[in-house]
């Protein structure tokens, strides 16, 4: 079993942050799963500083990996895109400020799909991150590096971001715990926007309690993100209770066509486990779920086409030659963006253009309302919803790269959550042919406490999280 935060804090107490950080750096050095886009040169210095100041704090001396779309002052932030090659942010994201205050050691930036656009980390300009359980399979995405690094023991905790499943998918494929917080629970200040109305920064770890600890650190109000909402935290305190009387809803639409039989069985076994612990379940219906995927991609691509307009070879990143500004920008974007990013920008531009705006973008926003109402209705009767995180275990590298739509379809069970903005956590619930499978526990707005509690109770009553991936040295 890999060390959790409490083990690490004990080790730091009996040796030093410097030694603990060195042992993680060594693991990263030895590994070839390509989880990192860069390692912080000052990681050892950060640890020494913690030691010399005898610094306390919930994460004092704890190494953490940060998805490469979260701004880190003085440390390269590329979104795994060639267009941001060499970009070094002049400021820290809100979550990074919070982590530094808590004593965390930013050890490096983790690999991701280019600008978060993918479900496999294969669209990264640095190449795919390999799944620690099977190096021929994807780690999931877009926060593939953040999940793989945690499961391979290269860091105990990491941050990812989740626009349509990008924390939960790699958590499920790699066998980690990953939380997408309620929209507005974590400041997006310093997160490079892909689809700003859908995404949240979220923590990944090998244990639910470590995810809760990270939430206590990062989920504080910040007026630099105007969509950040004041709310009560206390995520770690919520982990104590039992499951007696918990009402679980199981939405039929999340077990539809394309959901692997083994995956369905493992999720139902998990629901059975909750019954054993005193919870009760009912089947619920969320009838607009089948339309969520099309609505999600229409909205995400539309927002992306606007958000990515800033990458024009002017203020940051690389620049191609052109006789005037327009040609320079057009060439830069042609040469430095990958194919998937260009597809999404083009589709988003089309969906927002005169004559098509109402048919695609506005229509998708209305369907979004219906999807959101499905959740509001469901939570009138139940405390949490349970479903498979992903339709299958991790697929093979290259398997879906020639057919963009086939890749989009794998997000079927994660995107409705982002459309509604509710929180959701993926926890390991077993293995199918040696590959991890994730159980998704979805909660009501700002009720992370209940899903963390449920996930924690499940973890304490199962042993899936104790198994070690083959790539772990």
């Amino acid at each position, binding site marked *: 079993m890999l060390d959790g935060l409490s083990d690490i804090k004990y080790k730091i107490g009996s040796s030093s942050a410097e030694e603990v950080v060195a042992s993680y750096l060594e693991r990263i050095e030895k590994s070839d799963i390509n989880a990192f886009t860069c390692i912080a040169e000052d990681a050892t210095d950060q640890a020494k500083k913690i030691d010399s100041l005898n610094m306390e704090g919930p994460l004092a001396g704890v190494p953490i990996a940060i998805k490469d779309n979260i701004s880190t002052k003085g440390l390269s932030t590329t979104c795994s895109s060639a267009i941001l090659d*060499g*970009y*070094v942010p*002049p400021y820290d994201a809100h979550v990074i400020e919070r982590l530094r205050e808590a004593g965390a050691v930013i050890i490096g930036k983790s690999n991701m799909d280019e600008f978060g656009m993918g479900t496999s980390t294969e669209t990264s300009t640095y190449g795919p991150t390999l799944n620690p359980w099977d190096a021929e399979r994807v780690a999931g995405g877009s926060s593939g590096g953040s999940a793989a690094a945690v499961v391979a023991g290269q860091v105990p905790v990491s941050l990812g971001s989740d626009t349509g499943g990008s924390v939960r998918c790699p958590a499920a494929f790699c066998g980690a715990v990953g939380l997408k917080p309620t*929209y*507005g629970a974590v400041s997006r200040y310093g997160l490079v926007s892909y689809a*700003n*109305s859908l995404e949240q920064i979220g923590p990944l770890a090998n244990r639910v309690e470590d995810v809760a600890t990270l939430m206590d650190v990062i989920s504080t109000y910040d*007026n630099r993100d*105007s*969509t*950040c*909402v004041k709310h009560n935290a206390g995520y770690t305190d919520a982990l104590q209770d039992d499951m007696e009387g918990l009402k679980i809803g199981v939405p039929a639409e999340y077990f539809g066509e394309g959901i692997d039989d083994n995956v369905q069985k493992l999720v139902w076994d998990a629901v059975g486990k909750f019954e054993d612990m005193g919870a009760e379940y009912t089947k619920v219906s969320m009838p*607009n779920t089948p*339309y969520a995927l*099309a*609505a999600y*991609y*229409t909205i995400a691509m539309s927002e992306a086409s606007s958000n990515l*307009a800033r990458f024009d*070879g*002017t*203020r*940051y990143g690389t*620049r191609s030659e*052109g*006789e*005037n*500004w*327009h*040609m*320079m*920008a*057009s060439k830069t*974007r*042609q040469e430095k*963006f990958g194919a998937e990013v*260009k*597809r999404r*920008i*083009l*589709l988003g*531009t*089309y969906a927002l*253009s005169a004559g098509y705006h109402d048919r*695609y973008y506005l*229509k*998708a*926003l*209305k*369907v979004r*309302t*219906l999807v*959101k109402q499905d959740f509001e209705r469901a939570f009138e009767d139940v405390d949490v919803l349970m479903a498979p995180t992903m339709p299958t275990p991790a697929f093979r590298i290259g398997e879906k790269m020639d057919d*963009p*739509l086939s890749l*989009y379809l794998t997000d079927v069970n994660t995107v409705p959550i982002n*459309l*509604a*903005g509710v929180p959701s956590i993926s926890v390991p619930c077993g293995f199918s042919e040696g590959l991890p499978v994730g159980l998704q526990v979805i909660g009501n707005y700002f009720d992370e406490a209940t899903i963390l509690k449920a996930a924690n109770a499940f973890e304490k009553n199962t042993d899936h999280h104790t198994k070690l991936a083959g790539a772990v040295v």
Partner: protein
Amino acid sequence: MITKEQVEHIGWLARVNIDEEDAFEFASELSTVLDYFGQLDEVDTSDVKPTYHVADVMNVFREDKPKDSLEQDDILANAEEIQEGYIKTPKII
């Protein structure tokens, strides 16, 4: 169905230059995805309001107090070409 000419036009709107052979491939890929989006037509949304974002916040204000901003040199450090404190680009028109 989206045509090669439409792809080139959208590419210009989005400032993404597109070569002839790429335009054919994008036209086919984009058409497949737009066909899939077409299923939204099945949903009756006649009395439904759009949801632009879900955070229950509106008109967020803060005190209008000046504070330190980033140093000019730090911001310009990432630009490809600078001159006398400005970012230099090829001519716009």
